């Protein structure tokens, strides 16, 4: 026992038996630590410190309430149960499809609106979706044959602005398997109601867009699918990878003012910046974008903050660069032009970021 005499704080902390004692777990060494306090009174303070530290660390916990735990358990079980059932259900649905009949009704003006059994799956591009993510046979489909944008509200009160010629399909039973799913061809802007328990999925020509609650635009043509984010965060991945949860390397996360372009032919997603980035927050009320001989780092920081677009530059090289510039309502890229031209620098857009190249300033 004599080596305890040389124990320092970290020795106590690393001693498994000591930590069990602190945690109040009964142990073979019960009494040992009390004994040590008695034998080496000078260790008392250190032991108390070690005890406090362990307790503090254990106390600092990310609290998961019982309800949250239950929600998450159910969510996982839903997914895994769905996966187990895929094989049986796929067979059933194929059979069902072959007897499905179309029932169409002309509702208003030039707009088709109908409940139908899974009709016309090739035209809306759903034929290739795996059974597990195909909506129920009872679906609603809406085609905008008008010449102007059409607004509609989904059952979860999310708003969709459907462009002319676009088609949207969703299950009557809107929240299913803890997912909200819509199928899109053409262009639509989504303003999705936040509901983290039931993520919102947009399937468009081989691309899956997944969000919790946000606004974004999806533009699906035969060759490309574009996703532009207005607010919140959105993740996109090729449909072919959705049933492969172990390898989600192809999944891309988009933040406001970023856009993804998905090539249908190559099944590849690339990330860029929207043509006309919007201000996400208002610039500082007093200073705005007026900089009086400020270091570039400050200017870039202000831009990043307002537009949410990462700006990458070599801080060491540009350390001596400072700037006197007055900007106001110019579009993002005009602002960048002005700044880089003033500095004699250049920029390019790569992977959703702005990359500045400069040879530095004197």
């Amino acid at each position, binding site marked *: 026992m004599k080596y305890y005499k040389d124990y320092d*704080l*970290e020795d106590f902390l690393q001693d498994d038996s000591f930590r069990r004692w602190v945690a109040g777990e009964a142990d073979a060494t019960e009494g040992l630590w009390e004994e040590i306090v008695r034998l080496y009174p000078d260790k008392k303070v250190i032991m108390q410190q070690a005890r406090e530290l362990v307790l503090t660390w254990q106390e600092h916990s990310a609290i998961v309430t019982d309800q949250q735990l239950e929600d998450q358990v159910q969510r996982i079980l839903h997914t895994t149960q769905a996966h187990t059932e895929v094989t049986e259900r796929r067979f059933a649905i194929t059979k069902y499809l072959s007897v499905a009949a179309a029932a169409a009704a002309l509702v208003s003006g030039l707009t088709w609106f109908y409940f139908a059994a899974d009709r016309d799956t090739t035209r809306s591009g759903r034929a290739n979706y795996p059974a597990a993510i195909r909506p129920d046979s009872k679906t609603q489909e809406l085609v905008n044959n008008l010449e102007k944008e059409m607004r509609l509200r989904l059952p979860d009160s999310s708003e969709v602005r459907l462009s002319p010629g676009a088609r949207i399909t969703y299950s009557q039973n809107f929240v299913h398997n803890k997912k909200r799913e819509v199928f899109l061809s053409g262009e639509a802007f989504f303003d999705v109601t936040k509901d*983290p328990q039931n993520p919102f999925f947009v399937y468009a020509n081989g691309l899956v867009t997944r969000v919790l609650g946000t606004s974004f635009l999806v533009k699906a043509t035969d060759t490309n699918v574009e996703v532009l984010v207005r607010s919140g965060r959105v993740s996109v991945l090729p449909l072919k990878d959705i049933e492969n949860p172990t390898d989600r390397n192809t999944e891309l996360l988009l933040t406001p003012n970023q856009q993804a372009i998905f090539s249908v032919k190559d099944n590849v997603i690339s990330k860029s910046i929207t043509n006309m980035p919007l201000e996400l927050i208002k610039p500082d009320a007093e200073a705005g974008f007026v900089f009086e001989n400020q270091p570039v780092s400050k200017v870039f920081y202000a831009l990043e903050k307002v537009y949410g677009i990462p700006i990458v530059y070599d801080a060491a090289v540009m350390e001596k660069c400072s700037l006197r510039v007055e900007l106001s309502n110019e579009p993002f890229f005009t602002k960048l032009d002005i700044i880089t031209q003033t500095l004699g620098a250049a920029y390019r857009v790569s992977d959703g970021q702005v990359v500045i190249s400069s040879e530095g300033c004197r």
Partner: protein
Amino acid sequence: MEQDLERWKKFKNGDAAVFEDMIRREFRALFEYGSRFIHDRDTLNDCIHDLFASLWDRRRFLADTDKIRPYLLKSLRNRLLKEIERTHALTPFESWHENRDAEDDIETRLISTETDERRKLQIGTVLHSLTPRQREIIHLKFFENLSHEQIAEVLDISRPAVANLLSQALRLFRDKWHTILPSLFMILFY
């Protein structure tokens, strides 16, 4: 540990009840550990969800393990690192909100949970000065009570490296601690 092996085998055979029980037992520990990497609860929930979903899908091909907790911690860790790497380009953006909030959060929580606010704040300051790596290793030791071998397995480093990292972190602790706290503890004790 024998029990772990038995449960694991049942799970691999498709025993849904054992699987559910495993999620309930392990979820909080995974969340707790994950929250040291990712501060966004939605993303973390998604990662844990994906982890279990993928385990269930691949259950027939998984190797046996008699240490479920370390096995899951390691899998989650790999997933989170991938997630962080993938979203790395966004760090400047996210760091405005999430990281800063989280830092404040640790402190607020530390303060609010105890009556002795001043002491908690001091402890918070010490915890703050640790690197993420050091916090991680201290978490695995103090919170999960893992052995050096198990930590080595989770972090995918050698056992001596674990011992080394841990003692580094703890020495740092001691140094900071000694300069900040003695007076406080004197008051507590005498």
